[in-house]
């Protein structure tokens, strides 16, 4: 009843290709933006910022990166966290060694270095495909982490291998409060998500999907496989690199290479699978899911403990997380392989007909 498109016909191609073609969607997005930029900073607690919103946004960015590589271009990667690490440590070194380096430029620099490393480890994709490529990305994950730990120059010869991120100062203003950090991350992630969406629905996105679906046919219509695949690795790693830099500077503060281990790579892969491969919205939905689930679980455990005297050990919670994630992956792959994003689309379809059943 509310979600009808009646009367909204497009009179130009521009209107047809818009990201939010339906007026109700545009209103919804405006409301979301309003909430995100104005309402939340006024109402949220510091814990909400630092414990939930900021990691949610940063990991969404990493998930977008992985989605570009695996969801759109079809190159399976298990090394996402390693590229985040490159971005983090490269940004750190830019800030450390280049005098008067603007921090945003350092983030971009970190992302660029990550992109270059991504291209290097993406070269095998020209010969290898499928799970062979996945194992090759594992090589990236293990080697990069070893390199960042062993090569002292990277961590400025810190004896513990831990680095402390410099404070974030842009144009004289220090981003120290949780709300300020949140707004910074929100802006960066928002802009980069928009850029990703534009790429995805443009020629480069179509080339990636063509390579994913049938690379021989893609070649025949003139798409250069090497360009397309390496570009996917580069752009994806850039996004992961910036996400890693944000992870270090805004979320963790002090960071060591171990923070970007295989476990994190898997978490981001789960976000992409559960959220919906090959969609930008899915990256956000998946990240929200994976970020909120541990919180929900510990809340449930605490509730069971205090109200029903059902005692579950703290250590069991992380194992429960494992089981729930694993189970949900399988569940989604069986029921809706295209993840939450497709479920959302289906919900919108139903909403169009509401209150009628069909």
């Amino acid at each position, binding site marked *: 009843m509310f979600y009808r498109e009646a009367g909204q016909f497009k009179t130009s191609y521009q209107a047809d290709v818009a990201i939010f073609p339906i007026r109700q969607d545009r209103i919804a997005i405006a409301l979301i933006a309003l909430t995100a930029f104005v309402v939340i900073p006024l109402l949220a607690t510091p814990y909400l910022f630092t414990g939930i919103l900021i990691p949610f946004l940063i990991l969404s960015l990493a998930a977008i990166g992985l989605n570009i590589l695996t969801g759109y271009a079809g190159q399976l990667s298990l090394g996402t966290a390693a590229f985040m690490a490159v971005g983090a440590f490269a940004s750190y070194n830019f800030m450390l060694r280049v005098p008067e380096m603007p921090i945003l430029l350092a983030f971009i620099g970190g992302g660029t270095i990550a992109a270059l490393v991504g291209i290097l480890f993406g070269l095998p994709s020209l010969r290898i495909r499928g*799970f062979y490529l*996945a*194992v*090759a990305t*594992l*090589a990236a994950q293990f080697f990069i982490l070893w390199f960042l730990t*062993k090569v002292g120059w990277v961590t400025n010869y810190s004896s513990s291998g831990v680095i402390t991120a410099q404070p974030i100062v842009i144009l004289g203003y220090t981003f120290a409060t949780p709300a300020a950090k949140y707004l910074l991350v929100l802006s960066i992630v928002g802009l980069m998500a928009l850029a990703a969406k534009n790429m995805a629905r443009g020629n480069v996105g179509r080339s990636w999907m063509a390579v994913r679906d049938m690379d*021989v046919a893609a070649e025949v219509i003139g798409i250069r496989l090497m360009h397309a695949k390496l570009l996917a690795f580069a752009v994806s790693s850039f996004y992961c690199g910036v996400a890693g830099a944000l992870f270090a500077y805004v979320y963790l503060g002090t960071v060591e290479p171990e923070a970007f281990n295989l476990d994190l790579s898997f978490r981001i892969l789960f976000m992409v699978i559960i959220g919906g491969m090959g969609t930008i919205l899915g990256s956000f939905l998946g990240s929200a899911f994976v970020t909120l689930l541990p919180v929900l679980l510990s809340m449930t455990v605490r509730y069971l403990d205090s109200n029903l005297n059902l005692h579950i050990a703290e250590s069991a919670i992380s*194992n429960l997380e494992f089981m729930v994630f*694993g189970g949900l992956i399988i569940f989604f792959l069986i029921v809706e392989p295209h993840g939450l994003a497709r479920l959302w689309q289906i919900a919108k379809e139903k909403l169009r007909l509401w209150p009628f059943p069909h």
Partner: protein
Amino acid sequence: MQFFFEVLIGGLLSGVMYSLVALGFVLIYKASGVFNFAQGAMVFFAALTYVGLLEQGMPALLALPATLAVMVVLALGIERVVLRPLVNQPQITLFMATIGLTFFIEGLAQITWGANVRGLDLGLQDEPIQWVTDATGMAVSKFDLVAAGVAAILVTLLALFFNRTRIGRALRAVADDHQAALAVGIPLQQIWAIVWGVAGAIALVAGLLWGARNGVQYALTFVALKALPVLILGGFESIPGAIVGGLIIGASEKLAEVYLGPFVGGGIEGWFPYVLALLFLLIRPEGLFGEKIIRRI
């Protein structure tokens, strides 16, 4: 020179242990076309169940078949809940399902039995065999040798099974094309239950040996990840390939650590097998024993 051989033999024997894990992969892949990322988790689960039962007071002679039974039940569960609904989905979907399975099994194992590190005593000592040391001056572990023997027996049995029996042929058909196999009346569900059950048994053997060597702990799952380079070298469908691949990975890993490690600060073992596999893939994308994939358009 003697030191070199010692390291080499140690590496080869450790490689055999990797092969044991890889065998489980190969079995499942050969028989159902599924790349079972969860094999490592199964090894961990088997080992943990065994020591868990022992801790509960069960005698070893009973705990062993009991664990085997548990692995079979696990296999049946996996077939029913994961594989059956995903019949004929693309390989990548099944692969991701096994990633989910990995996490599920790891969580289940630790919730059931706790996360403490435990030792596993198989009655075999990790000591040098006396007469070998006397004769050649090298230290070759008794334990490693027995493990190699076990692996050799398993490999022979499996190779015979696949190539000589009717069920083996049916398994190969299933691996090729699920729907076609169903169409000719091959009982898919039963076959998968059998295959995953056998893979579970292999996981148990691997789990016992690895657990005895390194202790039963979460890090065991990373050992299983090392089986992936083994598979790349040996090909995903070849049983002898799993052995040869394991030998190469085991030997090269140890040699690299000992001879190259000191120049770069050590810790090479963590990534060397993967990079080796990667370089190998660039030259020969289908592995040593794998079949060349020809695509027709």
